């Protein structure tokens, strides 16, 4: 089929002008886009209010969709469970027997721990959750890994707070709206979390790759001590993430680190906990006392 003939403006002045104006408007759109882009690259927070307002507006329908999403996941799990029930039952019985043994050991260790802490005069500060909320959306079609949380300033969520599920660390709050917040997931390439191996504390950095895995970079170069199956937990360096929150399991070794699988897969995560940042921000630098005021 030939393209429509009315594209050609011919001798009609009016048609010529309108074609020209349409193209000019298109170019102006592109130029405006370029300016907006430069502004948002120079100052990433420039449009956070707009984004917050947009996610506030769409939050309530997103909550409904999220409920449906959870229900359909439950349905699929139920059907799958029906087929796997026999082998799963046998495996669970085996694991239960092991776990009973472990439980006794753990109780002994906990008692000893409490005794040692008493000895050293340490007192425990429990994680005080700020809010429980549902993950209502994410940027599924972008290379960036952001998720939208169904709680915002109305429930005390503030910028920088870590977000975790019962499985492990999910991310941290990046922007806060009135009733929703934007979370930077740990799988985003901009997210860097200081971690250590749960067993013996080998320190590393966990940076997202962008495809759902995490790249572990060891702090100490040399022989790679990591083994597949090692569990990495947050180390608490930097003061943002509470130490000991599980984050990932080593899957594949590299020369200077490893690729790890995230423990709390965001697609399985229904409800998450928003916690306070672990340590308070460092105090401001001491005011400089200049010589004049000291003389007086």
């Amino acid at each position, binding site marked *: 089929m030939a393209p429509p003939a009315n594209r050609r403006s011919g001798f009609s002045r009016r048609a010529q002008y309108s074609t020209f104006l*349409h193209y000019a408007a298109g170019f102006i759109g592109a130029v405006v886009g370029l300016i907006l*882009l430069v502004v*948002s690259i120079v100052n990433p927070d420039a*449009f956070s209010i707009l984004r917050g307002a947009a996610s506030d507006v769409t939050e309530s329908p997103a909550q409904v969709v999220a409920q449906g999403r959870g229900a359909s996941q439950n349905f699929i799990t139920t059907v799958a469970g029906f087929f796997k029930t026999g082998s799963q039952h046998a495996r669970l019985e085996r694991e239960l027997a092991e776990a009973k043994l472990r439980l006794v050991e753990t109780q002994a260790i906990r008692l000893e721990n409490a005794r040692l802490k008493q000895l050293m005069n340490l007192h425990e500060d429990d994680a005080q959750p700020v809010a429980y909320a549902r993950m209502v959306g994410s*940027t599924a*079609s972008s290379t960036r890994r952001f998720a939208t949380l169904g709680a915002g300033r109305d429930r005390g969520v503030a910028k920088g707070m870590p977000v975790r599920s019962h499985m492990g660390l999910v991310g941290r709050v990046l922007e806060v709206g009135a009733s929703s917040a934007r979370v930077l*997931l740990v799988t985003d390439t901009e997210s860097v979390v200081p971690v250590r191996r749960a067993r013996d504390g080998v320190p590393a950095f966990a940076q997202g790759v962008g495809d759902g895995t995490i790249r572990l970079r060891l702090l100490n170069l040399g022989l790679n001590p990591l083994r597949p199956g090692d569990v990495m937990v947050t180390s608490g360096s930097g003061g943002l993430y509470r130490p000991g929150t599980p984050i990932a399991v080593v899957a594949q070794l590299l020369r200077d680190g490893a690729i790890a699988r995230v423990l709390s897969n*965001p697609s399985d995560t229904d409800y998450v906990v928003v916690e306070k940042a672990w340590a308070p921000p460092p105090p401001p630098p001491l005011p400089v006392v200049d010589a004049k005021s000291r003389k007086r």
Partner: protein
Amino acid sequence: MPLLSRPDGTVRQRINRRPSVIVASALPWLTVIAGSIMPGWLLIASAPVLPPLGFLVFLAWRQLRPGLLPMWAGLPLGMVDDLFSGAPFGTAVLLWSVAAIVLDNVETRLPWRNFLTEWLVAIGLIIAYMVLCLGIANIAGAAAFIDVIFPQVFISVLFYPLVGRFVALADRVRLTAFVAAR
């Protein structure tokens, strides 16, 4: 036959009707905006897996009915997409406007239109769009490698004809005559 009786007994006039002006003009915009917002709701993704539906719908409207969405449509629609896509604000405004101009130029140069050529042109635009989106996100602070978007490009390219069918369906709905003409 000016009168048509329905199974439930009501009688409805079939001729002398026209499509609603509001639906006819607003539906393309609404479908693009829905395409921008919906993918974020479907799943909490840990990798880019869903096609950029907003861009695909925008492209399909421009291919199906050139001139229905004006040349500057990339400005407002791209802004809406930027609010939800996670890319730096302005990415879609720039790329959608440029895509509209490029598509218009290609279509004036192509002597014929058929399914295959339209799809090939769209494939070129989709791949360019995704690679540029990745590049812009990387300039703005991310550090993702290009192989992250391969699955997404594959899915989007195969998904595009389906989007085209959906847009054609929306176009029929748009032009359905259900308002009585005076």
